[in-house]
């Protein structure tokens, strides 16, 4: 009797497994992706929706519950008109707040400049590494070393370089007329320090991704181009660039998303008061002043800005010949 029951149970268990085995590869792939998507929905989309809901409530700094009454889009209006009750503004269209004290512009300027510089330098490094020369392996290691350094250590290196107590770089930069006497207290100087620190570290990331793209290009194409008399510039323009554009855009997309979320590097060098990025604003509003609803609104706006940029990249990728969409 029990043997019969076991057999029935076994066949009951076997049924979905048998069904699974008869699905197409595509259906099986989607089935396997299902749990991951569900997890993503729980850990990413749910918090995002919840953040948006919180952002529609008032700040309640006098009560144990940090969220007050429903006030609709007031926080968004305040954030976009320069009236937010935060130490730094998200956006001030009247420009009474200096540009580099407005989180949106600080972050966009940082993202655009750092990604452009990192791409240019990374591309140059990748082109060199793509050549055959003696000691190439060691050069690769040397280029990748900055990328292996943790953010806080990276930030400390630059902080100490410009620190008034032990730094040596301020004097030099001052002597060539670039910085004032207190670069870590001055918004423009600090912005440049953070930018250079990021470029120094992350160009290696771009170099490696671009190098991978370069090495996937069939060398015979260059041989053919040489035979037909193409100049090095023509070979770069008509072979390298079109074939590398896909991986290049993906690498830039990753870097842009990272750059738009910049926080740790700023916090450990100049501080959020001097260089207020969008994430800085979220952390300050959340930790320092308990304006959790305002913090939620800044966080949601940050997600919106990043999404817009991602969409632009995806359009670029679709249009590129080796697009992934």
């Amino acid at each position, binding site marked *: 009797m029990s043997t019969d029951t076991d057999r029935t149970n076994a066949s009951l268990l076997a049924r979905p*497994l048998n069904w699974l085995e008869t699905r197409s590869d595509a259906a099986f792939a989607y089935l396997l992706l299902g749990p991951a998507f569900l997890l993503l929905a729980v850990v990413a989309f749910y918090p995002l929706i919840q953040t948006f809901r919180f952002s529609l409530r008032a700040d309640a700094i006098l009560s144990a519950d*940090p969220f007050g009454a429903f006030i609709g889009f007031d926080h968004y209006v305040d954030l976009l008109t320069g009236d937010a009750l935060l130490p730094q503004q998200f956006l001030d269209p009247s420009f009474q707040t200096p540009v580099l004290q407005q989180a949106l512009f600080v972050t966009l300027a940082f993202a655009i400049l750092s990604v452009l510089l990192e791409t240019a330098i990374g591309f140059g490094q990748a082109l060199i590494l793509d050549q055959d020369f003696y000691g190439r392996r060691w050069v690769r290691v040397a280029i990748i070393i900055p990328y292996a350094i943790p953010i806080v250590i990276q930030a400390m290196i630059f902080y100490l370089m410009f620190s*008034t107590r032990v730094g040596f770089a301020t004097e030099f930069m001052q002597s060539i007329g670039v910085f004032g*006497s207190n670069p870590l*207290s*001055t918004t423009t100087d600090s912005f440049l320090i953070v930018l250079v620190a990021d470029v120094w570290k992350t160009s290696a990331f771009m170099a490696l991704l671009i190098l991978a793209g370069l090495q996937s290009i069939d060398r015979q194409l260059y041989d053919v181009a040489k035979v037909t008399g193409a100049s090095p510039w023509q070979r770069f323009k008509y072979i390298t660039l079109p074939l590398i554009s896909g991986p290049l855009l993906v690498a830039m997309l990753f870097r842009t998303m990272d750059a738009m979320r910049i926080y740790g590097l700023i916090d450990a060098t100049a501080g959020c*008061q001097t260089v207020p990025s969008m994430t800085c604003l979220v952390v300050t509003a959340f930790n*320092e*002043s308990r304006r959790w609803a305002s913090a939620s609104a800044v966080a949601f706006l940050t997600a919106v800005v990043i999404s817009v940029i991602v969409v632009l990249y995806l359009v670029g990728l679709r249009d590129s010949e080796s697009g992934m969409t």
Partner: protein
Amino acid sequence: MNRYQVSSESVSGVSRRRFVKTAGAAGVALTLAGCGGGGGDDSVTITADQPYKDAQDEVVSALHDAGLSDDIDVTIQAGDFESGSRREQFVSTLDAGRSDPDIFMMDSGWTIPFIVRDQLVNLSEEMSQETLDYVSNDYLDAAVQTASHPDSGDLYGLPLFPDYPVMHYRKDLVEEAGYDPEGENWATEPMTWQRFSEIAADVWDQNDNIDYGFTTQADSYVGLSCCTFSETMTSWGGAYFGDHENLFGPIGDRPITVNEQPVHDTIRMMRSFMNGPDANNAHPDYPQITNTDILEWTEEDARAPFTNGNAVFHRNWPYAIPINFNDGEFDDADYSVMPLPYAVSEDEASYEGAGGSSHALGGWHLTINPNSDRTDDAVKVLESFANENVMNTIFEEVGNPPPVPEVLENANPDNVGPIGNFLDTMAVAARNTVPRPVTAIWPDQSPVVAEEVHNAYLGDKSPSTAMSDLEGRLEELEQSV
């Protein structure tokens, strides 16, 4: 198709059936592994500084000697060292409704926001009248104010120890320069900023090998608004919110008084200290005694040059005293402290509480978690802390001065380490403190004050423009509540 690409079926050694089973089992195992933990014991737990944990045996023994029942066991655990992180830790604990720890050690700079949010136990309702009377009559009044509800006046925290800065200086250098600190009684008689800066400039001038006549903290951070700027402004007769009775509110119904002459003069004096009297927006009557390095300095940055023998005067909290004794590049006898200087006397100041030598009041309180399972025991533990012998034990074992000025003055100098050399100065500082203007809106106002003052120190804005901007921003925040 790439020539390396082949059917997945032919290379895979794992069937779908096996894959699903294995992945499922691994998931269940990992989920179960994540469960468990927790636990605890029956003692009253206090989250405090590491030195309290290190001195747990002595402190707990003193509590029992002070009358705490032997049935009540006390465990001290170390909280985050950094004040802001400690606050975030307590915010999470209270928001999550956790019952552990039973007692929090809270910074007097951020206790009131917890009180007005009704997130702590009201000690006025729980403690014995005897203890409440002791606190209201004998404890440092300014410390008690930062542990009380600004409207009802009810006590929500028991001051554990107060903290107030002093001026550390190199006695050997000033004596070599022809001054007589002991004869002129520098230890207990505050001098004016005028005389102080002239001495600092003179001594600095006579010692070419020393980089700074004076080091202090002028970075744009919480310490600038709560403390260094606040006390210097107060010593000039200026104030954030008029009379000091307004320091704790009422929010939105008190004057904003930052855009006034004494506050402008404070900034001008600091600019003279950094850039000399001829610089833009500097005060012509004060000499240069330091440089703009201080604009990036917090406590430790400013202490290091002094400890290394590279500064004549240095403003800092008493924690620096044992460090200077132990690590200072000078003999112990060559080092001393004095009260902070002032610009106008209390009589000359426009606001009650302002003027005269002023020392920003820091310090920490003990408060009770309303979600505690042992509230009654926790109250008894707090009552035992309100005891002279416990205060002296803490002074001796941990180095934190008693919250009762009389206990401080009567402490045995031989038992309290290096601070014992300067109890007279500490007593003067304790009597001349200026509390932080802590209200529920202060966490929003503090970074704004720091930013505008720092802008003016840097010279990015004139003192009047910076203070006018600050006035507007403070008013806007006041009206938002």
